[in-house]
């Protein structure tokens, strides 16, 4: 079975007044149908930029280096020349939900009309049918009084409802791939739990592929099948969720897990990762993490760039000090 999404050697740079900033370096990952891939990282890790690259939503000063590929269903998105081709993909095969639900909804148009408009753009169906699909979708995401909400404006809904309505809108066109960029970060924890349950059940029912971006490892642990840990534009470790969390190998992943407060483990003191995240204008040479790494080796880690190598089946690590363990 071919992969639903395949990214190969993606390099994304931004032109700014201060020069060219490298946001994503040499990124490769793949996603199958029905799989939830979690991308976790802190600020500056490049996780949002990656997701936006899939939909080509990055701002105008973005450069994608030649040689990179983003293949969705056998089409290379980076090679699209016309907006028309992109529009076919956006909202059609690929849908995206954002952190801020107000970002998806125009404030002066009723939610229902926006959903119907999106449907009509991608499917050749009648307006009445589009409306019934939309209302149905609103019901599915757990919005009570779906008919009433269909005729309301975005500001009339609470934060949690808005987020669910955004998910409904994103899913109404039955995309094969769903990109979720911090969808629950702005929500209360009780609402977050409901939204995550919803995403999980939808993935199961429609066999959608989901790329779930977040900084919250707990959310990843409960929702994702595989996880990729990003730091300053590079994937430093990736693999099945269970394996990465129980058996992390990259010093950054280990550091993250040790810094994370765990409700079930109140006796363990929190260990911060020493140092600061370097500014993207001052990318460390060699391994990007070497300035904060406890395993740092002078002469090796600051010169050589580690590649993502197989550690065990499915588990890949990009660290010069971690050897293959088969």
């Amino acid at each position, binding site marked *: 079975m071919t992969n639903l999404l395949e990214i190969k050697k993606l390099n994304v740079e931004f032109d700014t*007044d201060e*020069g060219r900033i490298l946001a994503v370096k040499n990124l490769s990952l793949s996603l199958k149908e029905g799989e939830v891939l979690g991308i976790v990282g802190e600020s500056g890790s490049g996780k949002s930029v990656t997701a936006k690259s899939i939909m080509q939503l990055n701002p105008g000063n973005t450069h994608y280096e030649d040689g990179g590929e983003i293949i969705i269903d056998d089409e290379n998105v980076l090679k699209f020349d016309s907006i028309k081709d992109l529009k076919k993909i956006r909202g059609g095969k690929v849908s995206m939900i954002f952190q801020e639900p107000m970002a998806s909804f125009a404030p002066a148009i009723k939610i229902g009309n926006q959903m119907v408009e999106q449907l009509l753009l991608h499917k050749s169906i009648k307006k009445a049918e589009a409306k019934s699909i939309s209302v149905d979708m609103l019901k599915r995401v757990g919005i009570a009084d779906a008919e009433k909400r269909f005729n309301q404006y975005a500001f009339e809904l609470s934060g949690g409802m808005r987020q669910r309505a955004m998910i409904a809108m994103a899913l109404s066109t039955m995309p094969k791939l769903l990109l979720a960029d911090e969808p629950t970060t702005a929500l209360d924890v009780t609402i977050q739990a409901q939204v995550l349950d919803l995403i999980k059940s939808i993935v199961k029912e429609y066999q959608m592929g989901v790329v779930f971006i977040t900084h919250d490892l707990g959310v990843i642990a409960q929702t994702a099948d595989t996880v990729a840990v990003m730091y300053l534009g590079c994937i430093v470790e990736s693999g099945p969720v269970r394996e990465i969390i129980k058996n992390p190998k990259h010093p950054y992943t280990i550091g993250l897990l040790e810094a994370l407060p765990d409700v079930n483990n109140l006796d363990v003191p929190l260990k911060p990762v020493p140092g600061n995240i370097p500014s993207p*204008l*001052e990318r460390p040479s060699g391994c990007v993490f070497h300035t904060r790494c406890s395993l740092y080796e002078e002469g090796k880690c600051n010169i050589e760039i580690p590649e993502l190598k197989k550690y065990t089946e499915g588990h890949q690590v990009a660290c010069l000090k971690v050897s293959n363990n088969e």
Partner: protein
Amino acid sequence: MEISSQKKEAYFTATQMQLVSSRFFANRSARIAGAILLFMIVISLFSGFLSPYDPTIAGRDKQYENGSPELPMFWDENGFSLRPFIHTKSKYRGADTNFRWVYKVDTEKRKYLQFFVKGWEYKYFKWSINLPGKKFDFKIPGLTFDTHLFGVDSGGIHLFGTDKAGKDLFSRTLAAIYISLAVGTLGVFISFVLSLIVGGIAGYYGGWIDGIAQMFTDAVRTIPPIPLFMCLAAFAPDTWSSEMRFFFISCLLGFISWPTLARRVRTHLLTERSQEYILAAKLCGASSTHIIIRHLLPSFTSYIIVDLVISFPYMLLSETALSFIGLGLREPVNSLGVLLQSATRADVLLNYQWYFLPVLVLITLILSFVFVGDGLRDAADPHRNK
């Protein structure tokens, strides 16, 4: 990219002002526009020195009415000369010219330019203010000079040509730049004071005071400016001196354009008031005075300078437009708008094209203001959406 630690430290210890000015100067169009603007301001201040002739009717050259521009040359068919010169012209009219006055160039007779010549008198700071009532009249003697940068030994030199009465367009243009800038400055100043009062009260107190101030501001803003100006300008009696008229027009401009600035002032104050560092200061028990002086005023100043510079070109354009249709300044006080008035006749377009030179000057002046304003705005707030 390796950044030296010295440069990094300079960045860390740079004040807001330093950051803003370094961003401004890094912007090429802002730099160039800034230089041009500075140049124009300087030459307007020294307009008396740079103009060979009095821009008013007193300095007209009866021998050279409607004359075309004369540019100094270094070289003609008779040879090269280190000293710049122009050719003499003589008036001629005959059947072959349809009995229109034309100028014939005599390439044999040269007029050499002289520098630092003595000529007509120009004054600085000489004002006489006549307010109602004898007690308020006062005169300030001011400074008088009579040296000019260049002139010719006989006849006249008219770099931009002359108009119908023989007035030198170059001198008039320089004086006009000064007048336009002066009216603009005064107008912006009046507008600023008014908007500070209204916008400041609205922004600082909020609540119902803000509501009322807003209504007032919006009411003034909805009045169409040109009819309003026409009404108010009509009140100015013709007996007023040109200074009074100048002052009056500036006041009018200020009174009509303050609402926009007031809105900006109010917005800035409202945003700054709700900043968390203001709350932090309040939680230490800081008094309102301390907060205003230490926090609100500095942040406010940098925004307002940008707003003032951006509103300048609008002020200039308003004055130019109004003078152009005859409602603003009039002879003998001439601004760029007044100069443009004479450029509207059809025969000007056909025969005396140099009347349009002030247009180029006006465009340059306004564009340079706009670019400087944009550059300042981008420098002060680089995170706006581009």
